[in-house]
């Protein structure tokens, strides 16, 4: 997937973002970081053609996504929205199996094989015990996992996950990151947004920093996630620390103690 000179505006006056260029290769994991309202979600929606770019193009295997039909595109690209609730109390399995929609014709319904695939994905995410529970009556984190099972059931080449770790507990966050890593080794590409630079360090993946309508930096987390860059996008002092026992890096905010004084 290649993104060239992408530009988007809701009201045709101010651009949400402009001059966005990057590409996603097979097996890539790309973490998009940026402050609230920097356009991460909008960008993901443009990648899956839910919103249409006002300039530039998104190409999938050298074809503009706007030239593909919804069905063609959704066989290749799976998208997980940030927050979601359903009106009707579908069971978790019924939700997961909805991921088969791109592979079914308009007049058909999922078969047993489809349900089996959905069930296997629920199992992989550790929520198969919820399969028959109503989607509307489970917790936000469990809903998130159910939706992830749904996009996996879609069997796309590229996964676009909008803050997949929000609502998840500490353990599930780590497990999900491990799953992303695992998926990327099976040939999938994963693009996800996050508010935690640490997630990028854990995956040691590629990082794209969004700020002021632009991608200010794209590259390996080691080179992109510097203390200066983090200060630049989040406006706080951050220390990037190397933890020897785990041989990994973490970000620690530096609290200005003077601010707390009376």
């Amino acid at each position, binding site marked *: 997937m290649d993104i060239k000179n992408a530009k988007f505006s809701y009201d045709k006056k101010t651009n949400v973002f402009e001059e966005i260029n990057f590409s996603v290769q097979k097996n890539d994991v790309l973490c998009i970081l940026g402050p609230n309202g920097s356009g991460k979600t909008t960008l993901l929606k443009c990648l899956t053609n839910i919103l249409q770019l006002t300039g530039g193009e998104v190409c999938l295997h050298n074809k503009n996504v706007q030239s593909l039909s*919804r069905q063609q595109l959704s066989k290749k690209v799976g998208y997980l929205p940030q927050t979601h609730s359903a009106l009707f109390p579908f069971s978790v399995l019924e939700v997961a199996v909805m991921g088969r929609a791109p592979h*079914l014709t308009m007049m058909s*319904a999922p078969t047993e094989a489809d349900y089996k695939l959905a069930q296997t994905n629920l199992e992989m995410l550790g929520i198969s*015990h919820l399969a028959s529970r109503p989607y509307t009556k489970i917790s936000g984190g469990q809903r998130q996992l159910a939706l992830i099972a749904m996009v996996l059931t879609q069997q796309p080449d590229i996964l676009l996950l909008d803050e997949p770790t929000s609502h998840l507990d500490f353990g599930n966050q780590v497990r999900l990151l491990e799953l992303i890593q695992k998926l990327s080794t099976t040939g999938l590409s994963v693009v996800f947004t996050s508010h935690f630079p640490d997630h990028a360090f854990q995956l040691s993946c590629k990082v794209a920093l969004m700020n002021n309508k632009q991608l200010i930096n794209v590259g390996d987390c080691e080179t992109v996630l510097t203390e200066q860059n983090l200060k630049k996008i989040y406006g706080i002092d951050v220390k990037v620390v190397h933890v020897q026992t785990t041989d990994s890096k973490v970000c620690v905010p530096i609290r200005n103690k003077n601010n707390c004084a009376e």
Partner: protein
Amino acid sequence: MGVDVVAKQLEALKSGNIAYHNALLVLVAVTLFLFLVSLGLGRYSIPLDKTVKALLMQPNIEQVVKDVIFKIRLPRIIAAMLIGATLSISGASFQGVFKNPLVSSYILGVASGAGFGAAVAIILGLNMSMVQLFAFLFGIVAVAASFGISKLYRSSSALSLVLAGIIVSSFFSALVSLLKCIADPRQKLPEIVFWLMGSLNTVTAEDVLKTAPVMIAGIVGLLLIRWRINIVSMGEEEAQALGVDVKKIRGIIIVLSTVITAAAVGISGIIGWIGLVIPHVGRMLVGPDYKKLLPITTIIGAIYLLVVDDCARTITTGEIPLGILTALVGTPFFAYLLWKSKVSW
């Protein structure tokens, strides 16, 4: 171990499917039974065995029995079942498309439009089949108007359509009131009022033959695409991400539902509450999955209006308008449903 869990869940899924198929079978059997019983019900009552014999065209049946069954009761009973099925399936489909459990088949103004069309035809002194045609056409005009108005909002959201539907409904209701005011109070006014309350009193075999193909085709169409309604009900962007062309499928569902509802209302007048309540009864039985819900809802709707119409024509010597009965039965039942299913909407 993991495989075990998957196998167990799939087993549960299968038993769920068996429960669904059993429910379907039972309902079809009940429908068939009620159909036969209803043919015998009325001022001239006919025992069940005789009804069956008459239906099987056996020779030694009196002409009067044949006449009552084939000329009077059969068209009305078929109409009741078809209209009940139509209003229920379109109501359930609309609830999914508009992501709103409180909408019914009439949300886009088809009933008010049809009411206006019928009132115009009655005031003009046209015959019964013209009244039906006017009702059918104005029902469709009203929905088209709702569509047009929602386009003005430059938003394709389901909510703007619902709002436009409310606007159009109110507009046509006002026009109907106006027509009632100027209608001749001795002849035309009662006719309009009774039409608006819904009845199958005047249904003829010809009416049924004209409208049944439309209703059946629409019902089959909706049943064919029913699983997709699940996905549309998850939200516009979510459905798009799943490869569903939301505008297209919403358009198809609205067109099918509107045409069959207009056809139904055309011959029966306005019968409320079925399109709202019956889908919820279906959900209580088989859950929200449209794959199972829509067939079940359709059959329950057929059974319900058949029973209500049986009551309408047998309780008193006169005819009780159907709209009154469906509301009298529907409202308390709906209240009970909300309490029973502890709906959290």
